[in-house]
């Protein structure tokens, strides 16, 4: 069982009455020549790492290698605990989690790239926040990770997930598309709704440049992971309410890739433009 596009994925889901996560799990077993028990065990390990990463910096703020980050997750958590959060519980928790993961990542802690290290906060941020707020099982979240994997695989296969090739829209944009699709399945939506949500994210984050200060995976990466959670949540909500997209996922992914290749070199992870080239950022990093 394999698929090369979103359309083929939806056809497989329809023909076999399967969720996206089930198709992706089946594909992994067949092409990876392994069995579902082993694959799920390996994904369970990834989930355990994600769970640690969203929690650790809340207890113990971590200073990043480049010194641009540290303590953001704890601040958000305390703000929320004081009842001052204006985002609501799922989003408030989701952005705290996402920023926590980037805090762990930038201080040489253990994370799961999803699909990259720089975008590793979005998927666990949203899925673990939804789990917490809705009392969902670990098995349900595991399934959601396979769903996210299906969307990310299509992006890797048919476009790119490298900021150096396609800008931030390809990294955090794809991470958010993965999270949106997974959130839809987690909350009971259909495969069509999942890919519609992924489309919505790619559309809303289209053109976002990759401009890390000092060339490091720190700033603005961390706050963009939080905005990735927000984008994913908006898209999932729209899809679950029955709003359809006019553009199919495959076409939107191709559009993202085309736009990505047109992003100037200075704005593709080279730290020569955007946030990285502001006078304040330059004075912070003191490099070049």
């Amino acid at each position, binding site marked *: 069982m394999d698929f090369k596009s979103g359309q083929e994925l939806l056809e497989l889901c329809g023909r076999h009455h399967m969720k996206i996560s089930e198709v992706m799990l089946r594909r992994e077993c067949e092409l990876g020549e392994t069995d579902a028990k082993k694959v799920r065990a390996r994904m369970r390990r990834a989930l355990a790492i994600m769970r640690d990463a969203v929690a650790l910096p809340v207890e113990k703020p971590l200073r990043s290698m480049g010194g641009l980050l540290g303590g953001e997750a704890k601040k958000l958590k305390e703000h929320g605990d004081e009842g001052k959060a204006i985002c609501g519980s799922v989003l408030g928790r989701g952005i705290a989690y996402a920023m926590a993961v980037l805090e762990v990542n930038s201080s040489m*802690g253990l994370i799961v790239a999803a699909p990259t290290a720089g975008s590793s906060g979005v998927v666990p941020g949203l899925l673990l926040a939804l789990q917490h707020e809705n009392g969902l099982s670990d098995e349900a979240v595991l399934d959601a990770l396979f769903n996210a994997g299906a969307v990310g695989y299509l992006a890797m296969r048919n476009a790119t997930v490298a900021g150096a090739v396609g800008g931030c829209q390809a990294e955090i944009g794809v991470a958010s598309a*993965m999270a949106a699709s997974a959130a839809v399945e987690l909350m009971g939506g259909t495969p069509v709704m999942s890919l519609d949500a992924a489309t919505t994210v790619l559309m809303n984050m289209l053109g976002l440049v990759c401009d890390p200060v000092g060339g*490091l*995976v720190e700033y603005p990466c961390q706050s963009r992971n939080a905005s990735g959670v927000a984008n994913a949540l908006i898209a999932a909500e729209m899809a679950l309410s029955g709003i359809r997209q006019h553009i199919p996922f495959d076409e939107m992914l191709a559009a993202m890739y085309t736009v990505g290749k047109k992003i100037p070199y200075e704005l593709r992870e080279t730290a020569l433009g955007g946030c990285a080239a502001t006078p304040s950022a330059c004075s912070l990093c003191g490099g070049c």
Partner: protein
Amino acid sequence: MDFISVFDVIGPNMIGPSSSHTAGASVIAYLAQKMISGPIVEAEFILYGSFAKTYRGHGTDRALLGGLMGFSTDDTRIRDSFELADERGLRYVFAVNTQEEEIHPNTVDIRMRNEQGQTMTVRGESLGGGKVRIVRINGVQVDFTGEYSAVIVIHMDKPGVAAHITKCLSDQNVNIAFMRLFRESKGQRAYTIVESDGRLPEEVAGRLREHPSVEDVMIVQSEN
């Protein structure tokens, strides 16, 4: 193994902050240390391109040193590599080369010396997402990724060696996925790299060494 696995998307599990500058760096060094019999007592790392520019903030130095000590990409000891290397008596130095431009942006040369005084230089490229390629061994251009289990045979470029290698492997029932021979020049030292689908039996190294033209044999098992 050419298919994109769900764990290429939700993964690798890694010490941050960068899959190319941290995880990939540790994989290159991990593969490099497999090519010399340990313990390694001295290592010099020469960093090129983006590695040279941003290695401190990405922990590329710690990741390289950790990989050289056999740590995998998700080993939390990577953060403390400097201290752990000092404890082991592994001397290390990092140098940058910003002159060389005709090179993959994330490239490192690793010069290693073991307790017996043997030296080996390995050049690796970090391709993104934790994927890497070893492109030079002791100055000779090679090409392997570590995704397959590989046997690297250093030998003189003489007739019959390739036949000896395939015979040893077939005697051990090893199915060859790829086999390539790289050489300094005709009749000189050559590197044959054979990649196989499954794990390679360690006994094969001893059998391969029996040929008079074979100088050394290294087995690099895939972690997959």
